[in-house]
């Protein structure tokens, strides 16, 4: 069931286009990674979907509510983690959370505050002033704030930006926990590994939507499926034999590895291994070539730029 739907969503700021004709759907319980370079319209899209700003054209529906019309109700059912934690440094963690929780009519603030402070590992420090917290702790508290009213949809705008690797890891672990709880999360990030680790699907945006698919499908869109055969030692004779096989479309040698494109990667694999062994080759491992998502992303952005110009 779709919980976020956008229909030709566009937003202009004067002559500048932030988002153009964005149409996408996010299913309930899904984590959608929203990738794009700086100024690609990620934050603007999140702000539109969270009812903070209105679109210039098109519209969006989140959990059954038009984001430009039913703003008050929308704010009750979505949670938002902004780019900066935006907490009150002179107040305690508990007081910060209680304050924001107090605006939601449908929750029991005290118990929710305790629940999320515990979940974020901040309960022991709940009476300490936020000004004394590390960046990672502040980010976890901001995440608790976004969750305290049990939102149906959570918008996370670069949740690990500016955090050290340990703190970023803690935040990612919390997002994994939320994924296991079946929350719908719209995650804007620059971090491709993070997107791949956490997200069911990835949308790449550069003002316009360039691609939307699972990481695996995005790879296949640009790179043919390839098999890597790791040999004990490179052998010209083995390479020659492999080249002559009818189901081999392409062979490339990289050190002790043969990188091959096959007609049918699954079915042809046993025959391939058999042929190599018969030619005297010693096979150490056979695996599928994994192209980093970064290469897919960069190609998408480059192609997007070419189309723009």
């Amino acid at each position: 069931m779709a919980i976020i739907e956008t229909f030709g969503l566009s937003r202009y700021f004067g002559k500048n286009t932030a988002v153009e004709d964005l149409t996408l759907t996010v299913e309930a319980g899904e984590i959608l990674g929203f990738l794009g370079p700086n100024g690609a319209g990620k934050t603007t899209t999140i702000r539109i979907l969270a009812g903070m700003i209105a679109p210039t054209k098109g519209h969006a529906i989140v959990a059954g509510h038009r984001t430009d019309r039913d703003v008050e109700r929308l704010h009750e059912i979505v949670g938002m983690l902004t780019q900066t934690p935006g907490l009150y440094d002179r107040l305690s963690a508990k007081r910060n959370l209680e304050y924001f929780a107090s605006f939601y009519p449908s929750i029991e603030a005290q118990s929710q505050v305790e629940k999320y402070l515990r979940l974020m590992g901040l309960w022991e420090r709940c009476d300490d002033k936020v000004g004394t917290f590390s960046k990672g702790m502040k980010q976890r508290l901001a995440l608790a704030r976004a969750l305290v009213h049990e939102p149906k949809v959570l918008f996370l705008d670069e949740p690990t930006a500016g955090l050290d690797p340990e703190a970023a890891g803690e935040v990612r672990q919390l997002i994994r926990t939320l994924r296991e709880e079946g929350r719908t999360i719209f995650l804007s990030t620059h971090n491709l590994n993070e997107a791949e680790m956490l997200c069911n699907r990835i949308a790449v945006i550069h003002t316009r939507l360039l691609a939307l698919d699972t990481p695996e499908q995005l790879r296949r869109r640009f790179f043919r499926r390839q098999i890597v055969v790791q040999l004990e030692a490179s052998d010209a004779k083995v390479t020659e034999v492999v080249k002559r096989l009818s189901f081999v479309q392409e062979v490339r040698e990289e050190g002790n590895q043969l990188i091959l494109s096959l007609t049918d990667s699954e079915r042809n694999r046993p025959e391939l291994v058999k042929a190599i062994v018969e030619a005297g080759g010693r096979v150490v491992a056979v695996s599928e070539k994994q192209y980093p998502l970064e290469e897919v992303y960069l190609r998408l952005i480059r192609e997007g730029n070419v189309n723009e110009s």
Partner: protein
Amino acid sequence: MSRKHIRNILLKEWALLFTDPNSALVVALLPFLVVGQGILYIWLAFRFAGESMLTTQVFQSALQKLVEAIPGVAQLPGNEQLLVLLLSQFNFFLLLIPTMIAISVATFSIVDEKLSGSLEALLATPVKTWELLLGKALAGAIPALAMTWLSAGVFLLVVSGLGWGDLSRFVVTAGWFLTLFLLTPAVAILSFMLGVTGSSRAKDTRGAQNSALIIIFPMLALIGIQITGIVWFTPLLILLLALAVGIADFISLRAAVRLFRRESIVVQWR
């Protein structure tokens, strides 16, 4: 829900206000500086200029209006008439306290939240704009009002200490009470509404303070109008004035809500 929201905003603002040494100091000390300065000016005028001040046409006119309003003043010797005339300005002088606290405190209220990023998070909650603005305005206006009343008490104690206690009966009149308990609250709310509005429109604290400074001038004008004898503010006039400022409070809240552009706050401020 609205009352609960406003109460929560108010309590949070107080928690922030009283944990910020600068703001707390302004709220605590400014009233005493205003009172001290006012009494010093009166004492200097009385001590060095004395009765001769009354010979000027401006003060003659003011004294005449004072006597018309409080006939008992006519029976006093000249120097005491001068004292009553000067001390009678003090209720308007006290109006400077909430306006100055507003400039120091309210003008930071929205700008600071925007700069720290907490405003964007707050605007993502179901809080209504008018709740936010009224909560912030009341959070400053209430302590400012309390300090103004405390200052009025301090003023009367100092007047008594200087041996002018007998003259209090000509100063602490119905007009004095109306000013303190009707006009001052209305002015306090107006000052803070303007301060908060300025804060919501300005891009930095300096811009917010500049826009809020405007409220000082009408307060000074009240003193100027009365002491130069143009108008003597009788209880009826003060009542009408309080009513007018009360209406201005309501209008300023409506205007503040209209001027508070959530979108541009979220998008443009960095």
